[in-house]
């Protein structure tokens, strides 16, 4: 039976002969063999690994599912920043802010004692909305050129599912750039306006409320009467 999911356009076949692939294999080969590891990739490397091998990316961002700090091991293997043309950049789970569907549609690959989660391009792109530098905007354009996705409607739906990304920032953070960057993205990609409150937040909250069901009547008052 064929699936009707709107993210079926990506198969997630990994080309390990890409620069990011070779770097990761070198890292995995240097890991202890007496335990299992699980890494989650983010940044542009998943796009190079699964969509187009010529995709330029200087670093390979990843984090470990147990938040292990791999910095020292990477330095020892000579795969860190300033040590290799393409280098490993270990991060943390919190560095990758994206949609709640990430785990559901990611590709999970096993290589010996290592398991790698490679997020769907949608989740990679939506994380790039936090900054939306020129390079990030080009990433949106290129994914769309290569795959025809996401369409404007698909991305709108994805952003509604990720509505919590649009919440105001904490006091000691820099302002949340997602709302402004989403507006800019719409203008750049589709020459169209986007009203974040009307087009993303309101429909998402309506759906969330519907999921909770109707608010109950005041049964406590009836008990007290």
């Amino acid at each position, binding site marked *: 039976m064929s699936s009707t999911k709107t993210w079926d356009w990506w198969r997630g076949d990994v080309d390990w002969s890409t620069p990011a692939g070779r770097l990761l294999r070198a890292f995995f080969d240097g890991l202890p063999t007496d335990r299992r590891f699980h890494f989650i990739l983010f940044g542009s490397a998943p796009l190079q690994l699964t969509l187009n091998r010529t995709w330029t990316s200087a670093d390979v961002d990843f984090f470990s599912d147990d938040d292990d700090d791999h910095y020292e091991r990477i330095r020892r293997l000579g795969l860190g920043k300033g040590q290799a043309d393409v280098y490993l950049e270990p991060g943390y789970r919190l560095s990758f802010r994206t949609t709640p569907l990430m785990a559901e549609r990611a590709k999970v690959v096993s290589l010996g004692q290592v398991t790698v989660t490679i997020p769907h391009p949608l989740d990679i792109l939506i994380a790039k909305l936090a900054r939306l530098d020129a390079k990030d905007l080009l990433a949106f354009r290129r994914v769309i050129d290569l795959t025809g996705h996401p369409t404007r409607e698909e991305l709108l739906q994805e952003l509604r599912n990720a509505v919590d990304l649009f919440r105001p920032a904490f006091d000691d953070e820099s302002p949340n750039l997602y709302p402004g960057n989403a507006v800019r993205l719409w203008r750049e990609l589709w020459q169209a306006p986007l009203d974040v409150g009307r087009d993303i937040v309101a429909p998402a909250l309506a759906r969330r409320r519907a999921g909770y069901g109707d*608010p109950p009547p005041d049964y*406590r008052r*009836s008990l007290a009467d």
Partner: protein
Amino acid sequence: MGREPGILAADFVRRVEIISDAGHNDSPMRIPGDDTDRPWRKSRLAARILFRKEAGRMTARDQRIGRLLAQDPEVTNRLIQQGIYSIRYQGRRIGDRKHEFDKNLGLVAR
């Protein structure tokens, strides 16, 4: 020194619940000392009292316990509603009669 009113109410509710749940024990794996489902049990009792109220069979004891439950911060309207949907009253689940039930309690206009 007097007992904390909330604890007293909880003890009272527990005793009454045992009576009111007789023959309807759907949680046989209760672990002594584990109170994690206490709000749910009290709210289910509240739902049962409301069923009796709607049927015009509320007793003085129901009224007393109902007032206690109405003051209990662990008993929420949301949990009571879940109880109304999940328990059987006189052998029947509420099903499509929920709106009518709320209306009979004077909680919704129409």
